[in-house]
């Protein structure tokens, strides 16, 4: 039997495959197509304290091998989430990772307090990386002290594992992983989407109502893999990697680069039945390579012959 479980601080996930935030609704929407208890975790759509309306359409546009989104974090707010969605997620034995967003440090702390008292939350993912909203969030994620401050403030008020989600829209993402680790983060997740835009040349209008949006999907995968690799060389805490994963091979690539677990977002839009295919593919790979435990794979990239070239290029 291959052991697919992985460890994030005090939390054991039954496998390393997690549904990415904002790409899986509140999880309950998908209960009809996938057994939620089969997933390593379900990261629910980013939640603020209060409900939010989000941006007007158009909210997404397809781009080569990817998509831009500017949803604007439409959501029901933390209280309705706890009352209306969490009970069903609990009944379906989902491992729930709640993605939280705040405009101020106090809002993150307040959200963490409220969710720590709710039954059925496995971990908190701090969204300090959403490129689509003006206030808060990203301002923490783009400043090393901001990242450090929000992680340490949340750590003080919750027993839950705390996972800051990092933005790739910085020069040196590894330094943000380091700041997170120093502040006591149990893991980091990366990457959120890349700030991008697309224009209709006939009308000269931006294709998104928000003008700019976040790029996700296969187009970003090689950059995301590189960023996970850099972070693995910098921090010891677990890394949850994501960005364009659409097959077991893609997931394995992230793990070999240094991820302990992975999240899958855009690919779930294309194939909502992807989850068992990913798990089967990983099991098959581990079997073929005689690896008993998936955690042995993390960071096993073999750079002995290539290291010199990579550094000098």
């Amino acid at each position, binding site marked *: 039997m291959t052991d697919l479980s992985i460890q994030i601080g005090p939390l054991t996930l039954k496998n390393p495959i997690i549904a990415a935030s*904002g*790409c*899986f*609704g509140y999880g309950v*929407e*998908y209960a*009809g*197509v996938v057994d939620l208890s089969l997933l390593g975790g379900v990261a629910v*759509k980013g939640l603020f304290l209060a409900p939010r*309306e*989000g941006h*007007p*359409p*158009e*909210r*997404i*546009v*397809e781009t*080569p*091998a*990817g*998509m831009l*989104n500017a*949803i604007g974090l*439409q959501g029901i707010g933390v209280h309705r989430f706890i009352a209306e969605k969490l009970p069903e997620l609990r009944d379906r034995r989902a491992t729930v990772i709640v993605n939280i967003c705040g405009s101020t440090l106090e809002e993150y702390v307040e959200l963490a307090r409220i969710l720590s008292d709710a039954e059925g939350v496995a971990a908190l993912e701090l969204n300090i990386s959403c490129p689509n909203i003006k206030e808060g969030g990203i301002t923490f994620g783009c400043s090393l002290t901001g990242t450090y401050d929000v992680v340490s403030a949340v750590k003080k008020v919750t027993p839950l594992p705390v996972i800051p989600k990092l933005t790739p829209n910085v020069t040196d993402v590894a330094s943000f992983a380091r700041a997170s680790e120093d502040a006591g983060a149990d893991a980091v997740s990366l990457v959120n989407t890349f700030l991008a835009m697309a224009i209709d040349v006939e009308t000269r209008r931006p294709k998104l109502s928000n003008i700019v949006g976040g790029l996700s*999907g*296969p*187009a970003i995968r090689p950059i995301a893999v590189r960023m996970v690799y850099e972070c693995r060389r910098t921090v010891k805490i677990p890394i949850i990697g994501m960005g364009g994963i*659409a097959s077991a091979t893609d997931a394995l690539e992230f793990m070999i680069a240094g991820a302990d677990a992975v999240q899958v977002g*855009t690919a*779930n*839009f*294309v*194939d*909502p*039945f992807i989850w068992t295919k990913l798990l089967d593919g990983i099991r098959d790979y581990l079997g073929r390579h005689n690896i008993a435990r998936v955690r042995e794979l993390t960071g096993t990239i073999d750079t002995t012959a290539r290291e010199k070239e990579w550094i000098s290029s």
Partner: protein
Amino acid sequence: MPVDVEARVIRNTRLSSEYNVLALAAPEIAAATAPGQFVMVKLGRGSTPLLRRPFSVFEVLRTNGRVDGLTLLSKRVGVTTQMLFDAVEGDVVSCLGPLGRPYTPVDPPADAWMVAGGVGLAPFATLAEVLLARGTGVTLFYGARTARDLFYLDWFRDRGVRLSLATEDGSLGDHGRVTAPLERALAGAAGRTVMVYACGPEPMLEAVARLAAKYQRPSEVSVERVMGCGLGGCYSCVIPIRDGPKGHHYVRSCLGGPVFAGDQIAWDR
């Protein structure tokens, strides 16, 4: 519960240089489809195009009474519709469905008036069949740019659907928009119970919903918004729904729709 079927193309019928009807071997989906529901379609396994696209189920195909497939009515406008136009027998199309909230069929003595603009004809073949089976009288108000873009007229006529046509160039039926014959009919329908169903471009849907409201008839419209997943995961396909006289909130059209009551939608947002 939706299923994902690797559906074989049974045939591809070109209706014009832009429109085609693609028959797909997806009996599981066809048998479960209610009028107005849709499927999310993807051609090819690659990343271009990456996302699925929503299509109304056009016809449910039967051989000797057994459901053996469905068709899609498509107009060539983008990458996926070009691929649908070019598809040949034996090609495989990923088809996820059926999805969404269908139309609510009415029973006699109510009459059903279906209003279609262009490719918005798509949901009305299945809706007409369901309505006719209930004994409900059905009229199709159908508008397009020109007579050559009005399709399946005999199909509807043969089944007993009354037709009221309009073309923007005046080549067939009313000269102008389909809302003109619709308004005439509404004005002359005093005392009759009528349910108005619409599908087409959003300005047409708005005009139809306003006309229905003006003549105090209920309406159901099927909206088409840019959709990422069809299952409620991405929050891209939202439509503003009225909250009281001034407010609105966004509802995902894949789950709350694509069919909405015409008076629910905050058209001015």
